[in-house]
């Protein structure tokens, strides 16, 4: 079971690089933020798997909860900021 978690964490770390490509070369700003959220979701799974590997799941669960809250607050703040104040700027994104 431990070996399975190690393989799974390596596979998910490889999967992280796929949305990272979209973060680097996204056409718009929204694509970058969306794929940053996808990377955060992947990272939450990796943190939980590392907790199961170290047998310290009680500590890593709290880290995962804090990370989920930060991800949500970051996305909402970004959407609020872009939806309200950036309407006048012509060349953002693209």
């Amino acid at each position, binding site marked *: *079971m431990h070996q*399975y978690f190690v393989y*799974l964490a390596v*596979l*998910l770390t490889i*999967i*992280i690089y*796929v*949305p990272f*490509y*979209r973060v680097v070369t996204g*056409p*718009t700003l*929204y*694509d970058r*933020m*969306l*794929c940053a*959220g*996808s990377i955060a*979701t*992947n990272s*939450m*799974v990796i943190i*939980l798997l590392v907790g*199961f590997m170290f047998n310290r*799941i*009680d500590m890593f*669960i*709290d880290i*995962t*909860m804090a990370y*989920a*809250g930060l*991800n*949500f607050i970051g*996305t*909402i703040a*970004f*959407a*609020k900021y*872009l*939806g309200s104040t*950036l*309407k006048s700027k012509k060349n953002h*994104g*693209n």
Partner: protein
Amino acid sequence: MGISAIIAIILISLGTFFMAVGSIGLIRLPDFYSRAHAQGKVDTLALILIILGLVVLEGFTLNSVKLLLIVAFVALTNPTGTNALTNAAYRFGLRPWFKRDRGDRKKRGGRK
């Protein structure tokens, strides 16, 4: 290896498959609005499946209750965040992709 470990491995492998599919969808889909589907639905399903597999593996303890709390929180907030981001993009005037724009890479993600 008991029956719970086999169920957990099936659930976690299915979740990893959905995570890979969602990540590939972020690359392959043509514009922002269709990429929001890959992030808002498929990634949430993948996270729910993986955490349910970990709950099955953990058994009935305080940690599994906290894991179910994470499932509830993410199932509420991940589509909400994607919806807010898509709403901001729509209000900004991001142009959706139509089938007649196929092959025209310049029109992807341009303004209305």
